[in-house]
């Protein structure tokens, strides 16, 4: 008992000395779910709740505006889920996920040793998650989050669409609407009827995530939607070019031609 008390006192002292307030944002579509996090958070005087958000859209804006140190993030939310929102943040802050039940997400968390709170949770569990975050602060969290998002994008619901940021607006592109993808430095250009959108991912990522029966890496820098192809013409020596319905020409390398032929059953 004696020992316990002493320990606590030193902890408080340390915090007093630091006086750095951590900024926190809560993102959850259920008001009561937010209020319980707020209640537990109020015991942590060193943490300041800067905003509560209803959905991923508000969340994204709030993150850009406040640059929080930590966010509490629900997964199932209107229109875009927690993972999809995080993908759109340039430099994701530390995250503690809060979820009721999502088999896929929980498997992803376990795989990447990321802390999460299963609803309903109590103050003790909450404090533990916060303590863990404080210990690990800026160590490896960012990398872990990135890896987590990579896994999350393999979920069946998420491989059906691509969420991109278009200026300040968020655009959800169903994969069948994609014409082709093109590598552009650190980004990938997603070409659609409405022009192209940029996504901060690699070509390898998309090759992995997209359905291989419909999307073929036709070239080192191109992935093409097979259903958009009207014909494939020879082009220079050894190379080909795929002509899409919209008339656009997409380069096809020698290896890519083989893959295309296999998928098209030629």
């Amino acid at each position, binding site marked *: 008992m004696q020992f316990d008390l002493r320990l606590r006192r030193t902890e408080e002292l340390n915090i007093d000395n630091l006086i750095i307030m951590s900024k926190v944002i809560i993102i959850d*579509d*259920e*008001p*009561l*779910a937010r*209020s*319980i996090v707020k*209640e537990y958070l109020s015991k942590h005087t060193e943490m300041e709740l800067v905003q509560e958000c*209803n*959905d991923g*859209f508000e969340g994204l804006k709030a993150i850009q505006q406040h640059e929080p140190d930590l966010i509490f993030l629900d997964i*199932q*939310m*209107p*229109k875009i889920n927690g993972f999809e929102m995080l993908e759109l943040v340039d430099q994701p802050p530390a995250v503690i996920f809060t979820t*009721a*039940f*999502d*088999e896929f997400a929980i498997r992803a968390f376990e795989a990447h040793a990321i802390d999460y709170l*299963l*609803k*309903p949770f*109590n103050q003790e569990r909450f404090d533990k998650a916060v303590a863990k975050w404080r210990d690990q602060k800026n160590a490896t969290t960012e990398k872990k989050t990135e890896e987590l998002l990579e896994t999350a994008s393999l979920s069946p619901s998420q491989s*059906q*669409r691509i969420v991109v940021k278009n200026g300040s607006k968020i655009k*959800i592109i*169903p994969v069948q*609407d994609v014409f082709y993808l093109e590598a552009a430095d650190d980004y990938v250009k997603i070409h659609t009827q409405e022009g192209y959108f940029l996504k901060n991912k690699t070509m390898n990522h998309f090759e992995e995530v997209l359905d291989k029966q419909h999307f073929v890496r036709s070239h080192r820098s191109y992935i093409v939607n097979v259903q958009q192809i009207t014909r494939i013409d020879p082009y220079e020596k050894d190379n080909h070019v795929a002509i899409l319905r919209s008339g656009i020409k997409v380069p096809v390398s020698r290896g890519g031609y083989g893959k295309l032929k296999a998928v098209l059953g030629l």
Partner: protein
Amino acid sequence: MHVSLFSVRRFLIIFSIAWLVLITDHALVLQWFGLPWTAAISDSLISNALLLLIAILLLNTFRYYVPDMGQYMSVLGMVIIFTLFWLLISQWLLGLILIDYANYKVFLHKSLIIRFSIAFLILGIIAMIGIIWFNWQDQQKNEERKADAEKLAKEAELFKLRQQLQPHFLFNSLNSINALIGTRPEEARKMVQQLSDFLRGSIRKEDNQFITFAEELEYLQLYLEIEKVRFGYRLKTATDVTPEALTWKMPSLLLQTLMENAIKFGLYGTTGEVLISLQAKVTDNYLVVSIENPYDPDMQTPKGTGFGLKSVRRRLYLLFGRNDLIEINQKADSFVVIFRVPSEETIAI
């Protein structure tokens, strides 16, 4: 169309033996009456071969049209017509072929009434066997359909338990209660009560597949109350039900499944306020229920409508044998599901 009796091996064997016995008997009797062996055998072969053809014709007719066990008169008429038909042909053919035998013509004329009686009896027995066989097949098919319907209802119930109660709905509801305990304990108590009633309702035994719309609505109300606590101002519902609709009998869990679907689509497919409207009325001896939920055209959610709609469509088919009882309309910014329930008397059992 039914499976032919002749595709059943055991029947085929018995049928063939019976015909062999018939041919032998026929020939023996004619010989006993004084006909020469050759004439007796020819007569027997011709008559019974023709009878066999007529019997096959009769059974084949039943494959497409099975008279009810109650329609004695039509069965009797049919057998008489077939027998007369046989008599006419066999008389003509026998007279033609066996003309050389002395006194055969006289004998044939005298035996006509006996020939008719025996053929009538045989065809009568075959008709009875055929009717029993084909009716049994119909019954078998109906039972299969009924069993399928029951199985599906059970599956829907299980699925609902697993998907709705267990993971998401249940834990989120508990989380809401957890939050309410600290700030508004009275409301927490109320929600515990509602959640318990809802859980009890979903594990109650569904002995009777048909319940009134009012009962289904009452159960739905519990669910809606809980969801409204969870989602606060975002979830709004409007219900417009006529008094006649309330007493209409309908398959249980249909409404619940479709409402859950509408709420899920509405809440997770859009941001901001979500109005789910439910309308029910009775028109032209049908209960017509429509459920509307908003939908964001930007979302372009995959057209797949999930287990909910599919299972409802299948259950309606299995219960009523019809595919036109549910329709889905996608408007500019809303999604409407309309289903119709015929009166209970018209249920195919």
